[in-house]
């Protein structure tokens, strides 16, 4: 048997893949599925360790590390959701407009070749970017979903509003989570002195520096529920705005959208919410 060459084995790892699930074209469905996979992977390992005679302290130590990894996975799942959601918006609106709404995306010449592989303009512009803070996410959605009229008569769009109070609390909590993700990803869970200062400001409570973050099982449940709320409310807000813009486009020029009924059906499937275009309402498939 020939010796194994580790660098070659690492390259071979790229072949260890599985196809995306059938519902991945809907950002909110893809989000739900991945959150479930991460959460239940932890539940499964926990159940396996609970039922045997393995020493609890050993199991807890390993599970704690897994929960740290799950925390990052859950937060990055929300990042991917926002990117996929923005991609859907671009594909729905951009072909019907000729303004500066996509100028928020800067694609360097050297990366253009890579973008030719993406199958839609929305994915090409969004999937390689970094969407890890509320301000950036808000600015990008504000530009993509700006009014189609000149001068604008619609309020600038906020996917993560700062008002009323419960929305501000959600915004601030999400900012805290982006920072927490940074600590786990870049310092393998260690809360550095500089992380602690930022986290203290964001959480408005003392944070121990030079300690390792150890989320509990219930922490992960609350985290996934919170992120689910953010995703579902953002999905509904964006769906409503996209429909509003498309209806304005259709009112201004009824020839631009070839088949409003089909467009509504496609969007209802992607947002998994009812969408009304040109008086025709489509509901998501069951």
């Amino acid at each position, binding site marked *: 048997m020939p010796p194994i060459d580790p660098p070659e084995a690492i390259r071979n790892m790229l072949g260890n893949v599985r196809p995306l*699930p059938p519902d991945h074209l809907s950002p909110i469905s893809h989000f*739900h599925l991945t*959150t479930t996979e991460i959460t239940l992977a932890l539940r499964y390992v926990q*159940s*396996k360790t609970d039922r*045997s005679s393995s020493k609890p302290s050993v199991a807890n130590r390993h599970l704690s590390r897994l929960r740290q990894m799950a925390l990052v996975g859950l937060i990055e799942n929300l990042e991917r959701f926002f990117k996929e959601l923005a991609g859907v918006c671009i594909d729905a609106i951009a072909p019907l407009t000729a303004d500066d709404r996509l100028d928020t995306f800067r694609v360097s010449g050297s990366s253009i070749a890579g973008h030719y592989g993406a199958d839609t303009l929305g994915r090409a512009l969004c999937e390689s970017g970094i969407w890890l803070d509320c301000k950036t996410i808000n600015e990008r959605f504000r530009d993509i979903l700006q009014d189609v009229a000149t001068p604008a008569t619609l309020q600038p769009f906020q996917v993560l509003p700062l008002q009323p109070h419960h929305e501000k609390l959600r915004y601030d909590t999400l900012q805290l989570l982006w920072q927490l993700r940074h600590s786990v990803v870049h310092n393998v869970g260690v809360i550095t002195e500089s992380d602690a200062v930022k986290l203290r400001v964001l959480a408005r409570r003392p944070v121990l520096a030079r300690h390792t973050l150890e989320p509990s099982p219930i922490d992960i*449940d609350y985290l996934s529920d919170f992120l689910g709320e953010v995703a579902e409310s953002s999905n509904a807000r964006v769906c409503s705005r996209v429909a509003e813009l498309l209806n304005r486009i259709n009112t201004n020029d009824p020839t631009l959208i070839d088949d409003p009924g089909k467009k509504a059906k496609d969007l209802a499937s992607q947002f998994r919410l009812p969408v009304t275009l040109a008086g025709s309402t489509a509901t998501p498939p069951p």
Partner: protein
Amino acid sequence: MSIPEWSHYYEITANSLANWIEHQGANKWWIIDGDNYLSSRVMSPCPTAALVRVLRQANRNLLVQTHEPQANGQVIGPEKLDELAEPLDVSTFPIQPNHPRPKWADDRCLWLCWKDQNDEWMLAEDSQATAAFKNVKSSRAGNT
């Protein structure tokens, strides 16, 4: 592998399953492990209302695994599921003898598959999430 290939089974509508879940209590949380259809429509763990809503929209039939030898695909109603649901430690994660009994051991589960699909999946009560979200405001739990 589909349930009919290795087990006795009954058939039930998604609506009947939803009725049974609803009957277990509005405050209960559930896990769906292994089904892309439901998991892409509702996150797990999820509250009763969210799961019931998705099941009622499904308009499909399911097969439910059983040890009953007379079961051969007969259509059952929701009341029969009380007999078929088994604690997790019996059906899925047997506890080693003399080992302390974990809290989840009494959570009941069903093994199911969609009638038109092969892969089986598990529906289980989730006592951990039920306790965790008992007094929590959550839009997903419908109590905000």
